[in-house]
């Protein structure tokens, strides 16, 4: 008989995180991913100690203000003990936060990889570069992973929690490093650059340039080429870097948390994403479901009761209040509202059941009465996901 050496699956988020260096929160947009990431990081700092960093993309302004993060950028900032004290919490460790400034990160990357000062300045000044680095979605994906790698390599933190940028496709950021590497090693890149180095265009590629010229205009094409000729000098550095980032993502110390709600569209995306992580042999640590309606809403007995309350409202309310007519109307409203929410709660429960079994851990977070906009709120949410 063989001995099972695989460690037992963690039963709580606390257990999961205690053995990881990097947690990547991903999932569809608008489900509370940023807040969940911040709350998990805050809990880790309070409960587990050590230096914890949350690398975030776009926190709600009110939350950022409350944490004392006004105007932070790429630089990591420590959340002061005051902020915790206001929430009556005394962290064992330190909580740090950094925002992802895409433009700044790109510039830093160029500075790190450019072979010489002249190339560096030319690239930074190139209008095409400025466009690509500041505006393009794929560049956000790439730079988020790049920053993660950078920070992890510096070795300043025990745990890094990453909030992934909203993407068209939840998987884009996983592919971004590889795509960047492919891009720089592609034959097409060389193809496009060649004629502007030597105007000798071979017969096979001529039609391509003719079409490209006609569509884009020769000058524009020349601009592109100049930019990529400059960029090519950094080719090796970029490819190596992209490979290192890819390795880091599949490292056993890295885990992914898929955040979602039980609304139909997000849940479908979350399912797809979970399957895709598994297919890529990346570690799916947990699925966190936000804004889950309370169980009592789908209680079958209560549902039946609400039906009869609605039908017998005036009879039930009789003599209980100073205004029997209003009381009857209120009971009707109350019952109907219960039945309405019951429909949604049952739909959501069914969707939740379908998610079960995919991850080691499925955590549900109830609907909160108010928005989360301070440390107290983060820790309240954290307490729900933690144990």
């Amino acid at each position: 008989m063989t001995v099972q050496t695989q460690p037992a699956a963690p039963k709580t988020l606390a257990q999961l995180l205690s053995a990881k260096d990097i947690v990547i929160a991903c999932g569809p947009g608008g489900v509370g991913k940023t807040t969940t990431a911040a709350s998990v990081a805050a809990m880790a700092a309070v409960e587990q100690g050590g230096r914890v960093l949350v690398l975030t993309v776009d926190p709600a302004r009110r939350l950022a203000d409350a944490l004392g993060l006004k105007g932070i950028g790429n630089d990591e900032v420590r959340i002061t003990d005051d902020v915790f004290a206001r929430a009556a919490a005394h962290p064992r460790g330190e909580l740090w936060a950094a925002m992802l400034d895409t433009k700044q990160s790109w510039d830093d990357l160029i500075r790190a990889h450019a072979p010489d000062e002249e190339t560096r300045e030319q690239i930074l000044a190139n209008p095409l570069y400025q466009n690509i680095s500041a505006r393009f979605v794929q560049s956000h994906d790439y730079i988020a992973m790049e920053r993660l790698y950078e920070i992890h390599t510096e070795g300043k933190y025990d745990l890094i929690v990453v909030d992934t940028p909203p993407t068209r496709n939840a998987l884009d950021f996983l592919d971004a490093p590889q795509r960047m590497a492919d891009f720089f090693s592609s034959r097409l890149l060389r193809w496009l650059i060649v004629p502007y180095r030597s105007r000798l265009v071979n017969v096979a590629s001529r039609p391509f340039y003719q079409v490209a010229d006609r569509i884009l205009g020769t000058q524009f094409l020349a601009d592109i080429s100049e930019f990529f000729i400059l960029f090519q000098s950094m080719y090796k550095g970029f490819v190596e870097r992209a490979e290192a980032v890819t390795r880091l993502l599949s490292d056993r110390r890295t885990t992914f948390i898929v955040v979602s709600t039980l609304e139909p569209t997000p849940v479908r995306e979350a399912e797809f994403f979970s399957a895709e992580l598994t297919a890529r042999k990346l570690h799916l640590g947990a699925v966190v479901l936000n804004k889950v309606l309370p169980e009592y809403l789908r209680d079958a007995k209560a549902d039946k009761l609400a039906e009869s309350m609605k039908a017998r409202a005036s009879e039930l309310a009789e003599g209980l209040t100073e205004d029997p007519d209003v009381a009857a109307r209120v009971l009707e409203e109350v019952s109907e509202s219960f039945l309405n929410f019951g429909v949604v709660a049952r739909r959501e429960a069914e969707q939740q059941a379908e998610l079960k079994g995919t991850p080691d851990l499925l955590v549900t977070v109830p609907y909160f009465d108010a928005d989360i906009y301070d440390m107290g709120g983060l820790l309240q949410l954290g307490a729900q996901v933690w144990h």
Partner: protein
Amino acid sequence: MAGRSSRAGAGAGAAAVTTAPDLLDLRLVFVTGKGGVGKTTVAAGLGQLAAEHGKRVLVCEVDAKGDVAALFESPPTDFTPREVTPGVWSMSMDTEASLREYLKLHLRIPVVGRIGPLAKAFDFVATAAPGVREILTVGKLTWEVKERHYDLVVVDAAASGHIVGQLAAPQAINDLVKVGLIRSQTDWMLDILSDPHQTGLIAVCTPEEMPVSETLELATRVREETTVRMSAVVVNRVLPELFNQREEEIFEQLSRPESERVLSERAGGTVTPVLDGARLAVTMRRTRSVHLQRLQAGLPKGLPVLLLPYLFARSFGARTTRQVAHALGEELGL
């Protein structure tokens, strides 16, 4: 359940001017919003509404996921439009297919395959050249408008974070590319996009903090960075107002321990969950109304704000699309 819609509207938006009678007379409407707020639902609902008013409508999804067709109980669509319900055609944007179509139509290149592995070349150029993907998307949409294939083109557009880049692409290309065929093409695109009688933008949000903040930022950016006019803001998932003040007082009286006990006895089971459910509904509604007020206060005066009720639905399909269409119609005063 759909009967609740009027109440949701009246409760939250009585003060707002909610008529935009010209919305259905536009030729091109972009529907955008933060991820997860229901812009696909609104785009489909608007398509349905226009079709019910006798229009020939194309609903195009830009981040092709096949959701638009699903909302009409139809299998996923591709680049070729297909009628998914009477009067509504649906298609999914595919920028590579758009490029092929463009080359065929304008350059008369007989065999596209001749220019090499087009897919790869395209991917490359699209990554390299800012705005290529965007211009092919906007180009295809404006072309459908120009050719008058449909009365109305509704776009389930990019999320609010990316829509400005997309809408500003023709202008950006105009600035970058001084000559060439593209340059001559962007001129007529800009004409269509800049014409408030032809093109409009609808921002969808929910009454929650981040979606509202993003919508307010979007309104400013659209005004400052694009030539497109914002036509309306749609607030989705507005919860019904359960009680007025008097009703709330009575509810409190009914919730007193002794009343609750009597109610439970009379009803033949504990009524606590039912009362708790109402309290939850009231709290949810209240939290959200703060954001709704912030939205209404922050938007430019005169910009219509349309409220769509929260749909207590079993699933999302043709049924909910109709409900959304009717709720939109009501809000538009149709």
